[in-house]
């Protein structure tokens, strides 16, 4: 194909170098230690040069990343603002939920915090009229029921025992007109007095701070300061704020079938 024009000197030179290459190759395969030592030498000698050569590419990478970062910073800032806004909204929601959760926890704890051994009783007589709101239970003194003991159901405060007989007891409901319960508005942590109205509503008749802004939906619980009712028993929810403030009881007094009497010792209380 192509004529070879090469001197004899180059042929000899090529032959010698090629021979040495073959010898090197055989030696490096037969004695891997020699090959490793040679490679180590070459790499260690070349390292400064290699690092110097790599510098521009590293700088280019850094500059590229910096430029890309600056270009995307506007979008990133916008995205972060949106994200921050979402997070702030979530934090507000969380505060609301947390508050609600705390309230609910307190409500749940109320039943547990009631002292005394609870005893469930069926309501055998439900005497509710325009003049009084009381019920009769089917357990009485024989089962350890005493005057003044607290009566609850699964929803909250029902009332207290006002008369005890051997096998029965009379419970004055909190809806009775003569009932007065020290309470606090959970959301405001303001104390007051709730009285019965002989209807299925309660009335908030007194608050220690008249300037507070009471709103519908606020939760009302017992304070426990009277020594009769345990603290934080759920009473009801404010549902009408006007000239009078009415509370809708948590307990469904229209269908009161089973109640629980907390049989704590009442000596020294009443």
């Amino acid at each position, binding site marked *: 194909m*192509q004529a070879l*024009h090469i001197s004899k000197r*180059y042929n000899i030179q090529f032959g010698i170098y090629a021979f040495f*290459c073959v010898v090197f*190759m055989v030696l490096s395969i037969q004695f891997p230690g*020699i090959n490793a030592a040679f490679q180590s030498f*070459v790499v260690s000698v*070349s390292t400064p040069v290699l690092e110097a050569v790599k510098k521009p590419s590293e700088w280019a990478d850094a500059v590229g990343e910096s430029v890309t970062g600056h270009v995307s910073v506007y979008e990133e800032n916008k995205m972060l603002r949106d994200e921050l806004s979402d997070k702030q909204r979530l934090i507000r929601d969380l505060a609301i939920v947390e508050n609600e959760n705390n309230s609910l926890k307190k409500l749940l704890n109320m039943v547990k915090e009631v002292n005394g051994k609870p005893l469930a009783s069926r309501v055998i007589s439900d005497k509710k009229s325009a003049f009084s709101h009381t019920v009769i239970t089917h357990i009485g003194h024989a089962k350890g029921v005493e005057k003044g003991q607290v009566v609850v159901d699964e929803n909250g405060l029902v009332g207290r025992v006002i008369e005890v007989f051997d096998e029965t007891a009379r419970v004055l409901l909190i809806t009775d007109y003569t009932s007065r319960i020290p309470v606090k508005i959970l959301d405001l942590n303001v104390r007051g007095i709730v009285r019965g109205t002989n209807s299925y509503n309660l009335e908030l008749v007194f608050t220690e701070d008249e300037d507070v802004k009471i709103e519908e939906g606020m939760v009302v619980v017992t304070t426990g300061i009277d020594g009769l009712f345990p603290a934080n028993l759920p009473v009801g929810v404010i549902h009408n704020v006007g000239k009078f403030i009415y509370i809708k009881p948590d307990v469904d007094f229209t269908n009161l079938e089973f109640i629980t009497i907390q049989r704590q010792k009442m000596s020294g209380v009443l």
Partner: protein
Amino acid sequence: MAMNQANRDYKPFLNFMVPMVLFVLVILGYVLGELLDGFVFKLWLLPVGVFYWALFVPTATPMLLALILALIEDGLSGTPFGLHGLAILVLHYMALAQRQSLIYSPFAMVITGFSINLAVVMSAMTGVMWLLDLPVNLWVIVSWAFTVFAFILLSMWFNALRHKFMKD
């Protein structure tokens, strides 16, 4: 005789510059190999420079220089000591042997000559590696194609350098 005549057309600085360029190609090939880590092919730059400069300015590209650079490449690439050395030696020898035919040919012929010689050398290397039970890269054809492409690109730069250092 013709070789010496051709070399007299260039400034002596080229004798210093060509080894530097070849050394840069070795380092660049190694760095690119690291950057292309994960790719199946390898860009082999040293044969590009050795073939070109041995062809056009042989006095600036002695056989011993090509051998030393190839041995450095052996050390960097981890292949048996002498494998790249022998391959580059063969390529250098071929460049010198075909110089009279290629040097005054169109550039397409130079590229074709390089392609054929490189194919022979790379095939031989692959065969030797297979015989020595070393890992053989079956994508050697892709590596060959990329190296030929690199020859086309680098030759433009080498041409510019060469003409810059030609005597008036």
